[in-house]
């Protein structure tokens, strides 16, 4: 299909469906009138439509209908108690009852010690002594005064602690490990129960730049290990507030970036909207982001792709350079970006960073994706250019019966995995003539483009099981003479192949006119001759002699025999030649036995 025909073909499928707007319909009709391929495609679609409408419609007879209804009647529930009105009334009733119970529980569980006493004028001791009726009010007032006093003292202590912490922070040696020094210095305050975390927060958003910087350093060092005593998550809201203050954004963000709680990630996603932070936040989040937050990040990335400014595009590029493609969620992000039409190189470079260790995990997680997302994710994997992904990819595609996509996937990566994938594809689709020819042409393209094709093909053959080896060889047999001879030559000259595979290859060599020269065949004979005597390679030798005979006639055959050290007695020479001719098919034979088998037997019996 030509590139310019892709869009019209989509439109044609909608055209046969009567689902194309008028302008588009006119456009596609004009294209079809000029393009013969699309015209043919249109007739195929029309015929398909015709056939779909002609598909049989099995009838349900009255008896069938009655039988089905009878089966249902026994299983019908009474819907009497299921009217929506009653259900919603019951629901509302339950909701009200639950709310009342919660309110009651809350009221009962109030702890008077936590709340400050109610405020009122403090009565004089004289009044307290004179009026026993006012006793309760007087006690309440005393309690209130006591609480106020406590508050004042606490505030004083906090102010004193804050001052002390400020001194410690300013004295910190920026070159030494901050956390240890700080902890040592504030030990008395820690023992006295000073709210260190709150104090540091206060400095972080306070007016003093130097204190804010030091507080940020300390928090970065001690917060991840929760060494300040308070729950870390409590701090996120104040860090988020600090992030919104001019001049404090980076300091607060640095602290947030050390935390790994969900609330911290949520706050960091908000940093994507803050001009001073967005660049850093995009890059950081791309490198490590839990799956739950990927959709929000994806939305932000999509906004970036749609922005026309060059700076935004640069930011997108930098983000993708850091994107950790390690889960299906991040693959899905790339798929969405691809749909948005961002440059292919960016996607490719991201895909190439998929670590090998993630292969299995990715494969598993791909199974969990929806069909469309999976298709997109799969189409991305092929851009990883890493042959290690090829086999699982092709497996998945075949399981999905996405053979066309599997063929596309084979078009890119180069390596032994490519040829293994070809063997697998051929093995699975060998029943179909259409796929066989498509596979052969894909293999031909691959062989032509792959500079190390022979070594790749040989390593693939070495690692394959016998039936897959035969599949690959049979596929090679469908190629034109040049490439198939190359591959067969590689198989035969490689000592590590099994005898069965080599025989299969040499049989192909004789069956096909693969274009091997006499010298090639002689070299192959030499290689076979040097094989270990325990290896029975008589069939291979027979096939090679046959090929010699077919390629260069009886003279070459004689030379081949000499190379093998075959001394054929004069009286047996005539018989030998007849065997060879029989095997080559140039003479008819009444025997049922395979001529090559007979020749091989003859050779193994020869001196």
């Amino acid at each position, binding site marked *: 299909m030509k590139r310019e025909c892709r869009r019209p073909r989509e439109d044609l499928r909608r055209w046969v469906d009567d689902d194309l707007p008028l302008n588009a319909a006119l456009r596609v009709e004009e294209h079809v009138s000029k393009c013969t391929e699309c015209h043919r495609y249109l007739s*195929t679609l029309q015929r398909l439509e015709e056939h779909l409408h002609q598909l049989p419609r099995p009838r*349900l007879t009255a008896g*069938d*209908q009655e039988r089905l209804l009878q089966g249902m009647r026994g299983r019908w529930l009474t819907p009497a108690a299921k009217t929506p009105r009653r259900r919603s009334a019951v629901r509302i009733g339950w909701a009200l009852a639950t709310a009342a119970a919660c309110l009651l529980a809350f009221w009962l569980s109030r702890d008077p010690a936590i709340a400050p006493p109610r405020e009122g004028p403090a009565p004089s001791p004289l009044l307290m002594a004179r009026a026993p009726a006012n006793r309760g009010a007087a006690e309440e007032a005393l309690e209130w005064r006591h609480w106020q006093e406590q508050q004042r003292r606490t505030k004083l202590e906090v102010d004193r602690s804050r001052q002390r912490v400020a001194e410690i922070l300013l004295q910190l040696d920026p070159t030494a490990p901050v956390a240890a020094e700080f902890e040592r210095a504030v030990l008395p305050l820690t023992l006295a129960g000073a709210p260190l975390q709150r104090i540091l927060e206060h400095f972080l958003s306070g007016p003093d730049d130097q204190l804010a910087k030091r507080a940020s350093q300390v928090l970065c060092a001690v917060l991840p290990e929760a060494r300040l005593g308070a729950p870390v998550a409590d701090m996120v809201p104040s860090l988020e507030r600090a992030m919104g203050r001019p001049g404090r954004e980076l300091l607060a963000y640095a602290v947030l970036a050390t935390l790994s709680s969900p609330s911290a990630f949520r706050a960091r996603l908000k940093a994507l909207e803050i001009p001073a932070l967005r660049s850093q936040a995009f890059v950081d989040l791309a490198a490590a982001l839990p799956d739950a937050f990927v959709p929000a990040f994806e939305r932000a990335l999509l906004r970036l792709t749609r922005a026309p400014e060059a700076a935004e595009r640069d930011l997108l590029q930098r983000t993708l350079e850091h994107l950790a493609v390690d889960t299906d969620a991040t693959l899905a992000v790339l798929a969405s970006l691809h749909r948005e039409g961002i440059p292919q190189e960016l996607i490719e470079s991201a895909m190439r960073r998929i670590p090998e260790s993630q292969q299995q995990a990715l494969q598993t997680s791909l199974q969990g994706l929806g069909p469309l997302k999976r298709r997109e994710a799969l189409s991305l994997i092929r851009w990883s250019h890493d042959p290690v992904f090829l086999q699982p990819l092709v497996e998945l595609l075949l399981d999905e019966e996405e053979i066309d996509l599997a063929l596309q996937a084979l078009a890119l990566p180069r390596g032994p995995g490519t040829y293994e994938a070809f063997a697998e594809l051929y093995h699975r689709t060998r029943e179909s003539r259409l796929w066989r020819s498509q596979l052969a042409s894909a293999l031909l393209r691959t062989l032509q483009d792959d500079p190390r094709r022979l070594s790749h093909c040989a390593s693939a053959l070495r690692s394959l099981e016998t039936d897959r080896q035969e599949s690959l060889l049979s596929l090679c047999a469908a190629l034109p003479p040049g490439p198939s001879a190359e591959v067969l030559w590689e198989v035969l000259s490689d000592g590590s192949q099994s005898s069965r595979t080599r025989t299969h290859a040499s049989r192909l060599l004789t069956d096909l006119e693969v274009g091997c020269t006499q010298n090639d065949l002689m070299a192959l004979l030499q290689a076979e001759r040097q094989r270990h005597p325990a290896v029975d390679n008589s069939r291979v030798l027979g096939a090679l002699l046959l090929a010699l005979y077919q390629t260069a006639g009886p003279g070459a055959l004689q030379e081949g025999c000499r190379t093998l050290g075959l001394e054929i007695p004069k009286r047996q020479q005539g018989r030998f030649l007849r065997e060879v001719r029989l095997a080559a098919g140039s003479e008819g034979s009444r025997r049922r036995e395979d001529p090559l088998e007979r020749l091989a037997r003859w050779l193994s019996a020869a001196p």
Partner: protein
Amino acid sequence: MQEVLVKPQGPCVAGNQPLSSDARLVQQALQGDRTAFEQLVRAHLERTFHLVLRLVGNREDAEDVVQETFVRAHSHLDQFRGRSSFTTWVTRIAIRLCLDLERARGRRPAFQPLDGDHESLLSAPGKSVTPPERAQHRETLAQVERAVATLPPRLRAALVLRVLQGEDYATVAAAIGTTVRSARIYVSEARRRLAELLPRELEELGS
């Protein structure tokens, strides 16, 4: 004076519009009238059966799924809010059950060539057809059936609803639980795959 709009509740339709026969029957069924529900089943049985048959590929499974569909429809009738038609709602249940069945027994439907009435051009009056032509035509249709059966379930469901049952895309989308745009893509993709799978057969028959 500002007009107050009231959001319709339940299967009864808003405003002064008359209730459709399905909606009326649903209301009666909700009040405990089994005959009303049986009427609903009879009205939708044939259509649902055809859809399910195309999705599961054989008659036995199709009958089971159809029964289960209406049993579920009956037991969850109170959840039918009337936002879509009763037909769409039942279709949605049926499709979900077909997908469940397919998932349970492996990937592809246990396809059996379906016997039935061929709405064939070959059997049109005034057209003389030889037995070999008829046989070839049947063979081609069987291949089309087989190709349809190899489509992924959602594509198949979308194609059957759109092409074989003639539904509009809004109904197709509601029935398979997706957007109208996705439904269009599903149908187009199904056609693309079929056209790729069957070019030879179609050309032979065309010639």
